[in-house]
């Protein structure tokens, strides 16, 4: 009989994100959960990944445990191969050297456009105000492939974002190039706490690719603000491995401040 694993939805999101990283490639890493995804991936699967932080840390190998809330501290920029500043960091992405970008989001729409600025109301009179772009707009504009990491809540997937902070495919195929954004760039995967989405090569629409083992794809999409197309063969994603969970809980975030979330279970 299969063993049952218990984990939080956040732990699953981080673990499946870490498995997507490609070794020997460059990753422009956004603030928050993407940092943890990159650290876990680098420790377990992709030792030769080159991380880039927007304030100019090139190729850091973070010291654990992760210091929550910070990005520019010595733990997080440890053993970089170069220390620069903001204008040079964005030069790396703008000149085509960043293979992947990884960003969190408040809302995502069917074309992978990201809102991280406000919810409800208008820009002048927002309902709730959040941190906004930071360097997210640059990451999503410049990197060849952008990975979005977002908690799987129906209200976060909306037909139209309240504020378009960081560009996905804008209004559809060809729209990025028409706007003047670098050719051949755009969102690549959306990693959630239940599922994995990609973008259809022709329509550029967010498409369900895989769900956590044991979940029904219909249940996964039913609360979303729009119905995404489904891939022909929806794959199943294994739950976090013992090693992923051990690293997250014992080494990366022993205070369990960042990895807390709703408890889930799945068969290993």
């Amino acid at each position, binding site marked *: 009989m299969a063993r049952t694993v218990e984990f939080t939805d956040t732990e699953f999101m981080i673990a499946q994100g870490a498995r997507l990283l490609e070794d020997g490639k460059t990753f422009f890493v956004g*603030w928050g959960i993407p940092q943890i995804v990159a650290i876990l991936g680098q420790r377990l699967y992709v030792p030769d990944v080159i991380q880039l*932080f*927007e*304030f*100019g*840390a090139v190729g850091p190998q973070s*010291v654990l445990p992760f*210091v929550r*809330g*910070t*990005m*520019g*501290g*010595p*733990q997080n*920029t*440890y*053993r*970089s191969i170069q*220390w*620069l*500043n*903001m*204008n040079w960091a*964005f030069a790396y992405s*703008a000149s085509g050297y960043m293979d992947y970008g990884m960003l969190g989001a408040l809302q995502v729409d069917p074309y992978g456009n990201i809102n991280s*600025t406000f919810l409800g*109301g208008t*820009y*002048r*009179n*927002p*309902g*709730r*105000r*959040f*941190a*906004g*772009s*930071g*360097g*997210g*707009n*640059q990451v999503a*504009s*410049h990197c060849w492939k952008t990975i979005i990491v977002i908690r799987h809540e129906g209200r976060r997937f909306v037909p139209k974002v309240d*504020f*378009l*902070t*960081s*560009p996905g495919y*804008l209004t559809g195929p060809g*729209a*990025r190039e*028409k*706007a*003047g*954004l*670098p050719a051949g760039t755009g969102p690549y995967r959306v990693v959630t706490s239940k599922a994995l989405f990609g973008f259809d090569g022709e329509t550029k629409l967010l498409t369900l690719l895989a769900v956590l083992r044991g979940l029904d794809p219909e249940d996964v999409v039913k609360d979303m603000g729009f119905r995404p197309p489904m891939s022909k063969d929806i794959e199943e994603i294994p739950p976090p491995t013992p090693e992923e969970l051990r690293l997250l809980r014992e080494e990366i975030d022993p205070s369990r401040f960042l990895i807390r979330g709703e408890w889930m279970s799945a068969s290993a």
Partner: protein
Amino acid sequence: MNIRREGDIEYRFEHPDDFRRFVQEQKSRKAEPKLCPAKEAVSTFVADGDYIVYDFSSLTRGPQSLIREVIRQRRKDLWIGAEFTLHESALLTGAGCATRIDVGFLGYGGYIGQAVCEGRVRVYEWTNGGLALRLLAGARGVPFLPTRDLLGSDHMSASAAKVIGDPYTGLPVAVVPALHPDVAFLHVHQADVYGDARIFGTNLFALEAAMASHRVIISAEEIVDPEEFRKDPMRTTIPYFLVDAVVHAPFGAYPGAMPARYELDLPHVDILNGIRNEEQMQTYLHENVYSVADHEEFLDKRVGARKMSELRRKASIVEGYR
């Protein structure tokens, strides 16, 4: 103060010729001692209505002692160019000092988000890349610089960035106007009395901000012999002739970390993160700013020698910071 308005959007702008004239006439090239107390630096170089920019954040190497001094002197109607604005904007807004913020990244905690929603502070959305580029344009003496981001996003209507046809290809490209702040605050590891300064580790736009701003106030953990800079020029971040005042401020980044010098004071940062309402804000400001005469008294009475030596001890990563 030069403010331009386009519809809803106002932005700070100064033609490069006006800034160049200021640099020619008002910025002394003489190596003169500029060491002075924070009180004097702020009262001399920061006026009501000024545009202020600073390097890094309240968690890492931010000029926190200078920001507390601005609050203590109750400056009004400041406009902040905030690449990372973690607790700085919340404190400056809560103290009634700031009325406009160009962001950046508007972190942390509920207070500042609430202030934006209530309209107590106006926020313009340039993004981190956009703000860094505006300062680079200012430093390079050009009225604007082009970039291939911002395009297609709602930042085009929440800032004064524009789309133009690239004169070489005809394709659309975004442009952002040069920024010339009134004052730049930089907290550094080492400075000499003339203003030569060294930052160890990464920075946001320390040199760009120093070159593009009218006045530059350096606060330094350590004051070193000017000869040190001549011996090792690769390590100079800012040369003295950009600088107007030097403040000796050990623990000047507190409660944030100074890489390789002292660690972040997480419990204090959690107090800042927990500020949700006006009462909590005013209590914090009273306790940590208004009720102490200056940074030295703050360290002595509110932080304490024991805490400082503990934070120094925790800063065990020194590799690379020299």
